[in-house]
């Protein structure tokens, strides 16, 4: 890659906005990215979520990935962990569903029944 110098410039640009908002993660969204998830389009779901988090200016939300959870027919699946709350698992989460879950559940704490797979441990 030749453009590493240019990358530094871009970094400086975004860094200014970021300095103000570093903190602890309170909400964790896990996207299952096993073979089954990938085949079902989980990468798109993940990218949608990452962009939504970046747009929301929230530093306490993190998007991470895991492998196959064993419910391949439900892919793409995401797990939502909110501090002090029971974990919630959603199934068949495409980009559109991810947006809805992000707005209703992540930002407003309201579980989206339509895509709900399981609640609690």
């Amino acid at each position, binding site marked *: *890659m*030749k*453009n*590493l110098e*240019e*990358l*530094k410039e*871009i*970094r400086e*640009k*975004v*860094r200014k906005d*970021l300095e103000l908002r*570093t903190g602890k993660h309170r909400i964790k969204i896990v996207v299952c*990215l*096993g*073979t*089954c998830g*990938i*085949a079902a*389009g989980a*990468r798109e779901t*993940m*990218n949608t979520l*990452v*962009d939504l*988090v*970046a*747009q929301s200016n929230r*530093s306490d939300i993190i*998007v*991470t*990935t895991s*492998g*196959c*959870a*064993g419910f*391949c027919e439900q892919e793409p699946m995401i797990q939502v962990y909110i501090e002090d709350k029971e974990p919630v698992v959603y199934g068949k989460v495409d980009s559109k569903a991810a947006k809805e879950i992000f707005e209703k559940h992540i930002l407003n704490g309201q579980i989206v029944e339509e895509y709900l797979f399981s609640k609690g441990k």
Partner: protein
Amino acid sequence: MKDIADHIFDILENSVRAGATEVQVVLSFNQKRFFCEITDNGRGITGNEVTDPFVTSRKERRVGLGLPLLKRAAESTGGFLKISNLKGGGTCLEFEINLAHIDAKPFGDIAKTFIDALYCWPEVRFSVFLREGKERKLAIFDSKKIREIVNNSEIKQKEVRDFIYNSLAQELKKIGIDFQFGVSLS
């Protein structure tokens, strides 16, 4: 799997799950044949049955479909899939797909594959090379170098990822891989 880019991402995930900390990808594309070699320093494979769907190391389910699917995607175009253990540990996987064959899958967005890998597995070093001619290898992507510049919260910014994506996509055009305008088969 929708396209070849998905397959490559799946192989990268295999490497990560096998505990690899370094994954090297060599790509070449000539005379309509796309060749990809992925080597890692993970714990390697046991036996030669990895392309059997009923052999898997995972415990969540008893079938493993990633490699058998890729094997079929490659072989149905007259290509191949080879997988072997490296002497010093780790795995080497090679596959070739004839993109001009009627049964070839769409190519997909392979630059995106590496950007996603860069985001998903920050602790793993991914490097990508293009092979031009017989020996010459051209380094076009090194996640370690990128990670030295941008940290975890910076990489979440679309601007940053888009920039890395665009420069990688530009490099891939050198061997005729162009997501926007398709792979050139002429």
